[in-house]
């Protein structure tokens, strides 16, 4: 953790650690995306078309076996890659953008009333457990991926706003921001070119660890029955269906679960690597 007073050798070691996480993480993610692109294309089975023998154990024809309706699990697991990753990506990027901007504005604004009002609203939203808030919204707008995304956006901007506000207060007082103010740059220019890039390095790092939570959260919501509509292949829903017959057959549950773990671990490695990098570039 102490990079500043360690020798050059130790410093190189730190870079290697961060690099390992990044390479492993991006490698795993790339493999998954490739598989998600190629396997459904070349597979001879339709992911959503039942008709094979139900609950066939994994074999040379159906590598991951078949589910209760007689669908090929191998094709379905990889068919679900883009819906799972895409949903989570949208669910991270929108709150990240909105939260960073609102948080930064709060951090640099001088109006105390608005600041404390929005500040306690942010705390109020953050007081709700993630899954509870999302489930509550879903109960009012109905299940489905759009509702999940809506709920995640309504909730998660507040977490980013809190991170951004704390950082913006610090950045706002830094010498280079003062300097650009003295130079008479316009307020939007100072905000978007000088403050937000500095604030966003922090919120993006947070977004990576949030990404894991969102991926798992989206799958968990589908698992609870609030997500995609059948027959669409989605990992959480596949695990939900598999759980009904888990005492008869383990494969309909285990393979989508492993895909989910694979994704989570890939993102965790990227997040860990990025954190190491950030710590290395600005040691405290």
């Amino acid at each position, binding site marked *: *953790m102490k990079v500043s007073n360690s020798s050059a050798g130790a410093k190189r070691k730190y870079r290697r650690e961060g690099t390992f996480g990044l390479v492993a993480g991006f490698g795993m993610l790339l493999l998954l995306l490739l598989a998600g692109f190629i396997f459904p294309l070349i597979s001879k089975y339709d992911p959503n078309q039942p008709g094979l023998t139900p609950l066939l154990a994994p074999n040379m024809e159906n590598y991951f076996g078949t589910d209760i309706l007689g669908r090929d699990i191998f094709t379905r697991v990889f068919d679900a890659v883009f819906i799972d990753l895409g949903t989570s990506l949208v669910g991270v990027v929108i709150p990240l953008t909105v939260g960073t901007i609102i948080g930064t504005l709060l951090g640099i604004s001088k109006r105390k009333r608005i600041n404390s009002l929005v500040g306690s609203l942010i705390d109020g939203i953050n007081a709700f*457990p993630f*899954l*509870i808030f999302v489930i509550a919204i879903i*109960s009012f707008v109905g299940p489905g991926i759009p509702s999940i995304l809506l709920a995640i956006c309504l909730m998660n901007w507040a977490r980013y706003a809190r991170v951004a506000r704390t950082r913006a207060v610090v950045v706002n007082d830094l010498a280079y921001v003062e300097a650009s103010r003295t130079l008479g740059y316009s307020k939007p220019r100072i905000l978007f070119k000088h403050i937000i890039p500095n604030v966003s390095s922090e919120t993006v790092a947070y977004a990576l660890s949030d990404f894991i939570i969102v991926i798992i959260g989206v*799958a968990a919501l589908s698992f609870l029955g609030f997500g995609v509509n059948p027959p669409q292949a989605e990992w959480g829903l596949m*695990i939900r269906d598999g759980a009904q017959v*888990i005492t008869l057959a383990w494969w309909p549950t285990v393979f989508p679960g492993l895909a989910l*773990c694979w994704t989570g*671990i890939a993102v965790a490695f990227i997040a860990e690597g990025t954190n190491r990098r950030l710590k290395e570039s600005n040691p405290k």
Partner: protein
Amino acid sequence: MRNSSSTEVASTIDPNKNAFRNLIIGRFGRAIAVSFWVMVIIFLMLRLSPGDPVRIALGDADYTDADFNNMKIKLGLDGNFITQFFHYLSNLLQGDLGTAYLSGIPVAEIIKVHLPVTLTLIVFSILLALIIAIPLALAVALSKGTTVSYIFRALTSISLAIPGFFLALMGLLYFGSILNWAPAAGYQEEFPANLRYLWLPALVNCGSLVPVLSRVLHSSLIDTLDQEFVETGVIRGVSKVRFYWSYLLRPSLAPTVVLLSYIIGVMIGGTIIMESIFSLPGIGRELITAVGAKDYPVVQGIVLTFGLLVVFASFIGDLLGYFLDRRVTLS
């Protein structure tokens, strides 16, 4: 605001006493403000939801205008926005959370019956997690080997990335179906008997709790180990127990305890899933059922309970953090 007051106070004669009073007042004020927003958000949820909640509450059955108006009053949706809000707030303060559509039972009653199960699971999970995390973090921090801490970081990362519901199903498959160590469903309220039903869900919760707790504890232990008083302790040859508790753990525990109170929120999310998978009669399972049935008063009541629980927990956590390490507020 709090920062400026605590630095002012630090310069007076008895800084600790004043800082403590200010801390309690400040935190309490914040907890009240946050609770207020929690109530406002829940109030708005029903009002801003698409579709007419009155019609949804009445279901598909035929209803007369009188039924419609009665339901409107029952839901607190009559009158204008402001009167609705005060009506809602005064009901809340009297402990009236409305009645469930389906069963007709008061929501407060439902919460009273099912909340203890959920709280038991949460407390049990946290205790189990601490029993695992504290020795783990101590061992890794004291080993000082880069390989050990590297493996520790990698394993905790991986453990955090594994979804709890998948882990729970695997646990149920292995311990429930194959080894027959855990019952797949059911629950008993009494203390020693309930452990039989709770140990596996609690262990699964530890899959995400232990990494978070042990990581924070580990990094504060590393900071503590750098302090001079630790060396003094070694030189003075204090007893092992005293050394580990007073010299190492106690100065390092504050961040973990504060974190623990924030983790309650994450825990509640995990608990809902555990309750559904293990069929525990907790409040989370009630929530899932209520959402499926569009039983809005129950949904509102349970979500409110969870929100207030989190606010309360973080209030307590901040105070505990102060008691464990008085430097927290003064620095």
